[in-house]
């Protein structure tokens, strides 16, 4: 019985907060507001829907900001760390066990990514519900240090990925191709059991980046 009460705690707090929200005068029911917020975090607006923004530069910034829901997601930033150590999990804590960049971002001799990571996500067997799979992909490796995103604002990341010195010497067309079709980028939408995927689909993300480039690749101010 005690356990049930303990688990009811956060839910009751949630309802109390929702009630406050109603008294603040919103027309929407608290439940639908919460659902909309969740759906918004899990989906991407189609690139075409940004046509309603008449000013091209504003439209470009809005497109990149929408794509930023993917770019700044832990699934992406965790392997674009600012140090030589990858991050891990939704909380983006330093990777456990401690592993480091090494040659080509594939780990140090004796402790390469492939010591534990495989060409696909591997479900773990006979474990607690909190650990469901070990992530994997044939190209599993860290992004080079000049492509570090950890700790940067979306505006800074935007400037960075346009800069050939910090984007792997890619042209804008190559960048669109990378975002839309790269297999390791695509892992973000298929991260294995127990991990939240990045929002939308890779095709939708690729279209946002394409439209952003076509509108002049303007960057958010911050």
């Amino acid at each position: 019985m005690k356990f049930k009460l303990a688990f009811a705690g956060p839910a009751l707090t949630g309802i109390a907060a929702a009630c406050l929200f109603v008294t603040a005068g919103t027309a929407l029911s608290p439940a639908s507001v919460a659902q909309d917020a969740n759906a918004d975090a899990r989906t991407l607006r189609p690139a075409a829907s940004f046509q309603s923004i008449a000013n091209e530069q504003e439209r470009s910034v809005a497109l990149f900001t929408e794509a930023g829901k993917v770019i700044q997601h832990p699934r992406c930033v965790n392997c674009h760390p600012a140090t030589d150590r990858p991050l891990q999990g939704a909380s983006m804590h330093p990777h456990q066990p401690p592993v480091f960049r090494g040659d080509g971002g594939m780990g140090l001799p004796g402790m390469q990514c492939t010591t534990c990571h495989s060409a696909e996500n591997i479900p773990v067997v006979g474990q607690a519900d909190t650990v469901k799979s070990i992530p994997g992909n044939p190209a599993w490796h860290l992004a080079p240090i000049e492509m570090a995103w950890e700790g940067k604002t979306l505006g800074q990341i935007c400037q960075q990925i346009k800069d050939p010195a910090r984007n792997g010497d890619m042209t804008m067309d190559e960048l669109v191709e990378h975002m839309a079709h790269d297999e390791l980028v695509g892992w973000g939408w298929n991260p294995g059991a127990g991990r939240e995927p990045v929002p939308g689909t890779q095709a939708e993300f690729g279209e946002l980046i394409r439209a952003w480039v076509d509108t002049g690749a303007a960057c958010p101010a911050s």
Partner: protein
Amino acid sequence: MVTFTLNGQERTFDGDPDTPLLWVVRDFEKLTGTKYGCGVAQCGACTVHLDGMPRRSCITPISMVEGSEVVTIEGVSGKEADAVKTAWAGLDVPQCGYCQSGQVMSAVALLQMVPKPTDADIDGAMAGNICRCATYHRIRAAIHNAASSMEG
């Protein structure tokens, strides 16, 4: 049916292809030198060599091992393995011993890749092998001793 080489001998396994290699090695092949510590690639106790590279067997489905060579603590051989064995015995490295087959497999793999490792090389390669008895200082010293013994 999965066919692979285990310590130089051809073996087959016709159970669930998702069965972890560790379970096949311990429960079916009865090679119990390789240990189960965590089951989620966090401790290193289950380290084997898969096609010559260190690999956590607890998160390696047997289906992945088709056509591959697996070496466990029972079968590891060569000059690095000999040097590690001598160095380990010389310094009495293990305390309870539970982590040690994983430590040895990681140490041998390191020496195969980096014959004269620095402290940083050792820390990098061994960081995934946890020892609850904290024999880390002896492990590091023994790896240096093993490297020195192979020189010349």
